[in-house]
């Protein structure tokens, strides 16, 4: 890619974006209730959460479309909290593309450059580069209505990066596209943003999209960031029941936590039995003795074993009955019911010589103690 689109500014040591205690209320309702976030230069951070969790409102405050009720927003070290949107130097891609229907693709891309009063020759060179960047070289003279949704979104992306903004914001940009196109564009957006060294704040409610694209993910819940980290951190080491439930599939066993004397770790005891908690997991959760707790185990960490026979040391079990067996190609998924009626799921890699089970088989779910993650149970930290 030609030089003037690539590598926008020298990556300083200050973060590209800093949010401190950001708040927004609409009347009595707090849409965003104290968000702190630092995004590094060139980093791809995704705000992930269910609808109404405050992620979009946060993005709109960064863009300047909504004025915050409290807290600060810094872009490249400058407080922009009171700066109107057109002076913020932030590019944004909207879910419905928001291309100007009365302008061609080329004119759309030229728009931010014209607003910055660049010389005409410079504008046409940059527009060509931007079209090439999104692989739509020949589409400059077309109107948005003459293009497919995917093409329109690529033009919108070109328009948002052509003026080399300090920050690129994306508000569910792939939400209106079908699955196949979405997956192709995920990769393309990733590649383009890396190529440009752009700092990206991306909003989505699609966890798979977030896991694929992001350097780090911020899980939004009730107007706050519940957990911030790499996808692996969120999946393997969720800090709360909400995160465990929201990211991936989980089997969740409720009970009360008792720390083991002497050693780290401890036990979660519930109506279906007691399970050992690993040392690291126990230390991370930091629960008090007697607190409501939940033990989270991912479906691929569970094994099915017969009810008879010895349970090896360092393994937790719970009784279950197979209800359904789903063949999914590379894996087989077992749906089971626990003694208290709760549903559970187990994912088994095929071709490993594991035993086959059938509906109504009485089995045990088994997992290594270290595969269980301890989080606070319902009713908070107790």
């Amino acid at each position, binding site marked *: 890619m030609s030089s003037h689109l690539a590598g926008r500014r020298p990556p300083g040591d200050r973060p590209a974006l800093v949010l401190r205690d950001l708040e927004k209320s609409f009347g009595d309702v707090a849409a965003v209730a104290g968000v702190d976030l630092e995004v590094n230069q060139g980093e791809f951070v995704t705000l992930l959460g269910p609808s109404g969790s405050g992620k979009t409102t946060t993005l709109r405050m960064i863009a300047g*479309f909504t004025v915050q009720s409290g807290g600060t927003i810094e872009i490249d070290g400058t407080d922009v909290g009171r700066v*109107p*949107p*057109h002076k913020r130097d*932030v*590019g944004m891609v909207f879910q419905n593309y928001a291309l100007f229907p009365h302008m061609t693709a080329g004119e759309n891309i030229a*728009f931010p450059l014209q607003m910055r009063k660049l010389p005409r020759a410079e504008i046409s060179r940059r527009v060509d580069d931007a079209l090439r960047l999104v692989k739509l070289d020949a589409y400059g003279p077309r109107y*948005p209505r003459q293009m497919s949704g995917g093409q329109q979104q690529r033009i919108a992306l070109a328009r*948002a990066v052509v003026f080399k903004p300090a920050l690129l914001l994306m508000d569910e940009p792939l939400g209106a596209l079908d699955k196949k196109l979405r997956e192709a564009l995920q990769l393309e957006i990733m590649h383009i943003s890396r190529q440009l060294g752009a700092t990206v704040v991306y909003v989505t409610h699609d966890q798979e999209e977030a896991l694929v694209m992001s350097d780090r993910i911020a899980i939004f819940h009730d107007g706050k960031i519940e957990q911030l980290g790499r996808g692996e951190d969120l999946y393997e080491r969720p800090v709360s029941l909400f995160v465990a439930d929201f990211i991936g599939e989980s089997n969740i066993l409720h009970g009360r936590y008792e720390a083991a004397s002497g050693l780290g770790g401890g036990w979660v005891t519930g109506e279906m039995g007691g399970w050992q908690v690993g040392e690291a997991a126990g230390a991370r959760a930091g629960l008090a003795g007697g607190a409501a707790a939940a033990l989270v185990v991912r479906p691929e960490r569970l094994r099915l074993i017969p009810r008879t026979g010895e349970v090896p040391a360092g393994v937790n079990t719970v009784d279950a009955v197979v209800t359904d067996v789903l063949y999914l190609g590379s894996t087989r998924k077992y749906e089971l019911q626990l003694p208290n009626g709760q549903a559970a799921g187990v994912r088994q890699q095929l071709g490993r010589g594991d035993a086959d089970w059938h509906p109504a088989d009485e089995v045990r779910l088994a997992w290594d103690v270290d595969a269980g993650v301890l989080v606070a149970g319902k009713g908070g930290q107790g």
Partner: protein
Amino acid sequence: MTDSFRRWNRVLLILFGALCILFLIGPSLVIVPMGFSSGSIMEFPPPGFSLQWYEKMVTSAAWTSGFANSFQVAVATAVVSSVLGTLAALGLARGRFPGRSIANALILSPLVVPVVVIAIGMFALFVRWKITGTVVGLTLAHTALAVPYVVVSVSTSLRTMDRNLEMAAANLGASPVRTFRHVTLPLIMPGVFTGALFAFLSSWDEVVVAIFLTTARFRTLPTVMWEQVRQVVDPTVAAVATVLLVITTVVLMVALVIRRQAPVR
């Protein structure tokens, strides 16, 4: 439900519709042949064909100056009211200020307040300002009556326009004024244009306010007609009415075509 039942239903519907249309536009159409009459009084059916009344229309000073005055006032009204109406619609649609619904009601009030009441009020005021019988005076009066049409038409365009486009423009570095010029205005232009056409028409055939605000030396076409009907009753009035009808129809058709092409996407 048989097919023949359905067919009869359809025939009756078309018949009823045709009767309604005839009732609505019949009286206007009766005027047309009377203007081509060879007789010297308005009568239907006319005794023979002649263009003499059209000739009189284009040669008589009263009629030609009436045409010129009406046209000037209507064009000025269309221009002024489409500027004011567009700005008002924008403020009502996008602005957040106390009393917005009251402002909306006041701006649209000429649609419901009896025209005679408005005319008398304006007459009292304009006499004091000494602008009765002028293009400026009548344009002001007609603009007040025409602004609601523009506001309604532009508001509709603004409502159907995607607000994200204005946010996108701001995000890309356009100040509010440039956002309006480069994005909002081009997209609501069909609404502005339709509003302007209706404003033109509302002034072009307005008679009540014009009777109060015109003088013997400054008459608009409808007031000349009103006067002539009371005094001479020759078929020139029918000829003029036919011309008015044609112009109005053409303007309305233009408005319809614009409406149809309006959706840019």
